[in-house]
């Protein structure tokens, strides 16, 4: 799972124009990862035994998001120390080492992160682990040595897939209703263990950000000013023009 950056109303970039100035960012648990955590918790609760371990790559600040998962009920956490910006393949390499040492029955990742929106880490990780994988999962049924998963396709179609476990599934939002942590669970999560590990050789990044900018406003936008009645009248006219 990942602690993601959340943009406020205003954005400024760093001097080298390669990143958002951190003063303009808030941080939060990636939305997809809260669904993945909830799904893992439900499977363990249904099975009556088991353990949910959350793994993240990042600096100490990333532990805030990990503690959200621990407050939801995850048992422990492992953080791979990383200061620099990593690309998704490097992140997958860092995660793969930890996951191999844990020998899990199932590996969940969010479909994507809301800040960098690569949707690459889960797939890369499955490749590195040489595990069968299913992407964009909206339902899971666990069997003996296998899992049945629904995959969300374009146009509302659903693909039902069976995979042997251990397997890696990337979890889509809406698969469940993630639970809220009570204040007691949040306090207890502060006491839970987060094991910090140093990464091995993550290799060179495969891509580098050259420049980040706000795209110029395109043509064709008409700002409607005035009172509610005036604006409504203008919208009506525009709709009528377009429909004529």
């Amino acid at each position, binding site marked *: 799972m990942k602690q993601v950056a959340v943009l406020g109303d205003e954005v400024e970039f760093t001097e080298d124009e390669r990143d958002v100035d951190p003063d303009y960012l808030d941080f939060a648990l990636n939305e997809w990862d809260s669904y993945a955590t909830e799904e893992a918790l439900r499977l363990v609760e249904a099975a009556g035994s088991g353990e949910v371990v959350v793994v993240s790559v990042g600096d100490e600040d990333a532990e805030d998001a990990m503690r959200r998962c621990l407050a939801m009920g995850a048992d422990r956490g492992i953080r791979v120390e990383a200061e620099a910006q990593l690309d998704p393949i490097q992140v997958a390499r860092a995660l793969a080492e930890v996951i191999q040492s844990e020998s899990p029955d199932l590996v969940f990742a969010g479909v994507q992160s809301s800040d960098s929106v690569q949707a690459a880490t889960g797939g890369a990780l499955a490749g590195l682990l040489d595990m069968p994988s299913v992407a964009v999962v909206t339902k899971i049924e666990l069997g003996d040595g296998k899992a049945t998963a629904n995959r969300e396709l374009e146009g509302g179609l659903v693909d039902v897939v069976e995979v042997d476990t251990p397997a890696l599934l990337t979890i889509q939002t809406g698969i469940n209703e993630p639970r809220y942590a009570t*204040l007691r669970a*949040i*306090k207890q999560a502060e006491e839970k263990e987060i094991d910090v590990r140093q990464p091995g050789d993550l290799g060179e990044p495969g891509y580098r950000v050259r420049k980040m900018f706000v795209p110029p406003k395109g043509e064709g936008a008409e700002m409607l000013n005035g009172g509610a009645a005036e604006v409504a009248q203008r919208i009506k006219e525009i709709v009528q023009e377009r429909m004529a």
Partner: protein
Amino acid sequence: MARDPKHDILFEPIQIGPKTMKNRFYQIPHCNGFGSEKPLNQAHFRAMKAEGGYAAVCTEYCSIHPESDDTHRVSARLWDDDDIKNLGLMCDMLHEHGALAAAELWYGGPHAPCMETRCVPRAPSQIPSDFEHLTYPKEMDKDDIREVQGFYVEAAKRAREAGFDIVYVYGSHSYLPQQFLTPYYNRRTDEYGGSFENRARFWRETIEQVRDAVGDDCAIAVRMSTDMFMGEAGTQLERDCLPFVELVDEIVDVWDINVSGISEWGEDATPSRFYESGRMLPWQKAVKGVSKKPVLGVGRFTSPDLMVEAINDGALDIIATCRPSISDPFLPKKIDEGRLDDIRECIGCNICISRWEIGGPPVICTQNATAGEEYRRGWHPEKFEKAANADNDVLIVGAGPAGMECARVLGERGMRRVHLVESQDDMGGIMRWIPQFPGLGEWGRVVNYRKIQIDKMKNVEFIPNTRLDANGVKSYGAEIVIVATGGYWATDGLNGCTHDTIPGADASQAWCATPEQIMVEGKAVGDKVLIVDNDGYFTGVSLAEKLAEEGKQVTLMTHLGHIAPYMHFTLEAPNMHRKLHKLKVEIVTYQIPTEMAEGKVTSAHVYDEEHLTEWGVDSVVLVTQRRSNEALYRELKDSVGIDALESEGVTGFFRIGDCVAPRLVADCIFDGHRLAREIDSDNPEVPLPFKRERHVVEREAVLA
């Protein structure tokens, strides 16, 4: 953040007579219950708006002489040297913030009942007030006219001495100068009545005399109603007002333009139920078309875009606000800083005005719990002290008005974590469905403002779709637990008239419903509906309007002498009566049901219990009284017990809002705010004493 350049014009200075306003924001005269006799409350209340960026701030109507005594209602007064001292404090505090001070010099004529001074008011003609019953004026002869004009001059001099920069000769709302201008009040045949020139004479002469006395030092403002909506009898824009502007424009420094008379002044201080912002712009623009002087006026402006439009469109030079300045004294500053989503917008409920109409109590505001509390409780709408017990975690159960406000203020006070837990899928409580009544959409701003603020706070988390039971609360892990579970309408007809249920009333039956059942659950009602309203405010009449608009045949029954009497105080009554009459809603007063069953209701006359009437109806709606939803609170206090809560680490256990006692939304929000402000006091359950501004006697000195 920075101001949006499209709002720059609002921050350009403007000259009015000998004075300069630093920007275009002006707090119009409005009452607050403080007058000249609670000068500390008065000064702190007005100064908050100056701190919030207003360039000029006015008193409420300010009486020039004991003959203009509005008691039981509270006006300011400039009768003597002590009044100069008391209102002078307000002027000094405004000046400290770089704002101008304005005094609205007022002589009420027949509308002022003089219940304290026992004087006789004077008027153009001897006709009793259309606003204040049983108040007869003395008809003025020419000596009276000269004498009253002298009262204006002397009061203007006192205003100047107090430090006022702007002095009004106030006519709007059918007060003396406008009474002379208006045939409805002026039936004279001498040179002060009849023709336009004669009807304008008193006001013109008075402005001249006030200007001669103080015009070099003070700007002269004239407040005029440009339409009384009374046909020939009332003041009319074309016939009276535009010629009057042309007549005296040279000797006036700024025009304050509105509409309405006094008996239906809700046409001016418009409830959002009936009018949108900027309702008077056409009249204001007409005056600006003939005047060379700056024009200011109200319109319940909360949107800076509309303010800019009013100026660019040539309707106004100065944006005056009354209710929006109560709801958010920092409106100008927030626009200046580009913080538009922090603006606490007025909802147009007129609860503020209701307190003036009731006579006496201090101003309150649904949106701004700190209004009127600046001095006596020391509350600042934008500043919050870190709580001494900020290392506590707080659980608030219920995200209605009280719970939302409490969470917001506890968030501002820096509590470590605040969890606002709600059984529904969104915040709002009753304010999710009340704004769905006809015309009440803007009341939804109560929820919107708080939702936006709470969303910004890192230490406040909103948790929807979660119904906590007593065990859930006990083991939640909070040090402070606040129950805000709201209330509900009685399902059995329990009411404040008979203090009993109504035999047969049962909202679990298909033919019988409560307001929530209709508005939230969509319970169907039959074609012929009887609404029993023992509440007397907006719920019964709003349901009547809604159901009649849906084509039902509606009878609205109350034990009171009027339907929705509280709406008289909020100025909603006249248009509400018109609307229900047009919709053919049958109004039945002084009746209370004695028995009901499917298809049939029997009622008795409240002053003749033997006189029974039978009503054939398909459905009955019970708007009889509300009850606190206190099940969770009682279970926690009585079954779980305080000791068990303490053993789980709960050190504070409180309840707020309707869950304590059902009341006005303004009072629920105040309750949530109050608890949060005092969460670190010795006993937060009991409000800290507030400063009472009063005369304290020295017994020995009196007896000696």
